[in-house]
């Protein structure tokens, strides 16, 4: 129960952060990505602030054996720099550059009730779901002897 409330609280704080920083507004994001245009560096400051605070928060977590409300830390385990990582990131970057919306702002932005947001979120879910399907571990084939 505490675990779930903490997740809700964290989500609300995240959403607040997106709203205050205006990162929920694709126009603001695109203005940062538009180096050749009327450049707005704000997103760099959002990321900078987020990384700095997270750095210290994560260090505090690293000093613990387990999280406060859960059984264990669930950390990413992969370490190699492979084509999936780079290719996926490139594809993500293109999509992000097209509209100026990424997953967090996409869901948070639903609060504004725009049909454009809903359309993007539906496509987002379809894209993610499709990727999950194709990335799913294939069922091992039992060799058939003739």
């Amino acid at each position, binding site marked *: 129960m505490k675990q*779930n409330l*903490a997740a*809700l609280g*964290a*989500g*609300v*704080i*995240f*959403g*607040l*952060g997106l*709203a205050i*920083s*205006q990162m929920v507004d694709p*126009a603001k994001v*695109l203005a940062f*990505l538009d*180096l050749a245009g009327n450049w*707005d560096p704000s997103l760099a400051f959002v*990321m*900078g*602030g987020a*990384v700095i*605070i*997270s750095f210290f*928060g994560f260090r505090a*977590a690293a000093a613990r054996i*387990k*999280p*406060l*409300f*859960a059984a*264990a*830390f669930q950390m*990413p385990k992969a370490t190699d*720099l492979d084509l*999936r*990582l780079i*290719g*996926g*990131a490139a594809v993500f*970057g293109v*999509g*992000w*550059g*097209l*509209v100026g919306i990424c*997953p*967090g702002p996409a*869901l948070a*932005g639903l*609060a*504004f009730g*725009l049909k*454009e*947001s809903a359309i993007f979120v539906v496509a*987002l879910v379809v*894209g993610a779901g499709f*990727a*999950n399907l194709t990335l799913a571990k294939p069922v091992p084939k039992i060799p058939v002897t003739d």
Partner: protein
Amino acid sequence: MENFTPVSALIGGALIGASSSILLLLDGRIAGISGIMGGLLPPERGDTAWRVLFLLGLPIGVALWRLLGNPAAAIHITSSVPILVAGGLLVGLGSRIGSGCTSGHGVCGMARLSRRSLVATATFMAAAFVTVFVTRHLIGMGG
């Protein structure tokens, strides 16, 4: 550099950092939105509630800000429907294949000094910069 808003950017960023720290310290989870969402497609028993609640928190946080802080807040989306669909599909696909997005790699991964996340972030940033340059300054898609 018209609309540069360093103070609200830093404050908002700090809140995002606080959120990531809270989720890790309390629940032991990485606040990567694409990953949290991806774990619901399809949902797995016993691993659903915290994901749904975190994701629900996102628009609630925005709604709270609109209510208490800035009732005039608005977002501006000028993309056409086909572009919205294309963008959404690519962001969904890419974030799953690449194991993360701006929150997962850009914030959490970088905060952990992960080499993978550094490379992923540099890659999607470069791809995004190029895409905006092409669409706004070469093809003239406007914005």
